């Protein structure tokens, strides 16, 4: 009995140590706190977005609600790969069945974990998406799909099962934040939207090196096809989009491949780059980082425009008449408007 109690105490200590050592993503890199925010609100959304920064920076669910009565959530994360998006969709369907799933196709250009960048950066991005997911079979598969060949060799998967193995050397970098947020986190998004209020105009066009081959890879196609099948099997409409930001480049060769796929699969595909005038995006005002992402003013324009597509072409219902849901949104909107107003005051 004594040994059992000592063992339990030992496990509890390890759990506590792990909770202490894991990054909290509160005062810096809030992107790392986004994926976990979904679970408390899951269950009743009509639209779920997945994808990289081109969704969580460029669409505001608050505007979708205010303008169209659409109850949406963005399950986005930085450099989210298509296999991660697929497993997030699969996991989402364990919690709810939305009318529409929206996938931003930019990440099709990353065919393998190795193709997404340097090992250190890639691993950090993987952590941001995967460590935020609750444990499930979908997470297990997402981790396996995200590991590089090198990581598989040294059994990197164990570090996702037991993050303490990865973050054990953070003890020297612990700050007050690690204690403050030991058992809870603040909310950093508005239904998955990470608000950016800065304005940094696009003064020069960004350039991208030409490629030898513009064909999307087999692995990317494999997951896009799985996405289409998953949505079809669950009666969910899959809508493919290319978000309206100008950089990194979206090549014409990529565009035609997605157009062909959408046609073959009978999917709606909207390349918002082609509707910039209609959207009303002003690259002097609506970006916080010279055109890579939209700021809140740009995201609201994009959402206003895309909300109409969701409502008119996909039949997503206007739910503003629902009292309980409207009351929940009212709280979110107040906080959202407060943050926007504070940011405006600071710049004046």
């Amino acid at each position, binding site marked *: 009995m004594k040994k059992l109690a000592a063992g339990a105490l*030992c496990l509890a200590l390890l759990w506590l140590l792990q909770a202490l050592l894991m990054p909290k993503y509160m005062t810096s890199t809030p*992107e790392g706190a986004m994926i976990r925010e979904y679970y408390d609100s899951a269950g009743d959304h009509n639209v779920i977005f997945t994808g990289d920064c081109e969704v969580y920076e460029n669409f505001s669910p608050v505007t979708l609600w205010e303008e169209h009565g659409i109850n949406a959530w963005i399950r986005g994360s930085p450099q989210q790969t298509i296999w991660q998006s697929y497993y997030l969709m699969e996991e989402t369907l364990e919690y709810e069945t939305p009318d529409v799933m929206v996938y931003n196709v930019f990440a099709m250009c990353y065919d393998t974990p190795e193709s997404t*960048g340097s090992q250190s950066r890639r691993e950090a*991005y993987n952590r941001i998406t995967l460590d935020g997911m609750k444990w499930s079979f979908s997470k297990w598969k997402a981790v396996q799909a995200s590991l590089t060949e090198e990581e598989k060799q040294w059994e990197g998967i164990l570090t996702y099962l037991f993050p303490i193995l990865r973050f054990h050397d953070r003890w*020297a970098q612990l700050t007050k934040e690690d204690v403050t947020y030991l058992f809870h986190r603040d909310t950093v998004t508005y239904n998955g939207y990470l608000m950016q209020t800065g304005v940094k105009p696009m003064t020069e066009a960004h350039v991208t090196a*030409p490629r*030898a081959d513009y064909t999307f890879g087999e692995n990317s196609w494999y997951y896009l096809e799985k996405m289409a099948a998953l949505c079809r099997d669950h009666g969910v409409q899959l809508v493919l989009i290319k978000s309206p930001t100008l950089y990194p480049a979206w090549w014409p060769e990529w565009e035609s491949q997605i157009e062909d796929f959408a046609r073959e699969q009978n999917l709606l595909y909207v390349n918002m780059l082609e509707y910039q005038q209609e959207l009303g995006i002003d690259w002097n005002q609506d970006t916080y980082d010279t055109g890579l992402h939209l700021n809140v003013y740009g995201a609201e324009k994009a959402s206003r425009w895309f909300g109409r597509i969701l409502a008119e072409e996909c039949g997503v219902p206007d739910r503003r008449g629902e009292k309980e849901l409207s009351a929940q949104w009212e709280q979110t909107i107040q906080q959202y408007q407060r943050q926007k107003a504070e940011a405006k005051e600071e710049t004046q």
Partner: protein
Amino acid sequence: MKCLLCLILCVILSGCAGEQPDTVQGMGLTYQGTRITIQAPAAPVLEALGEAKTCTQEPSCAFEGMDKTYFYGSFYLTTYPAQDGERILGLWFADDGIATDEGITIGSRREEVEQAYGAFTGDSCQISGEEAALTVMLEGDAVTGVRYDACLE
């Protein structure tokens, strides 16, 4: 049990750190007397090349530090933030004012590329090194693009 706990704590609290070499003997080219080596520290190269015509910065989606693209008229040079400062991430040709060490540039003929790098099939020829890769792109018989890219671990 105490020993076990101590052992676990020792393992998980032990730190580890990696270091990057100061110099990289690798793939690159020489432009107007300046040696540009992919993955080498960028500062001496940027100083030798002088002021770029343009410099754009691309922040990452979540982390500090920016990739930068410098334009020098005949080529674009990209850098990335490493622990020890900027390093060269890649380079691609904008016109025929720059050539690889083997003399290949925009407009070179397929035959010249094959003489320089050996026979290849299709519309591109790739030479892979440990630190970088060189890709020569062709349309028909003529080279239309040349790029060097770091192979990041």
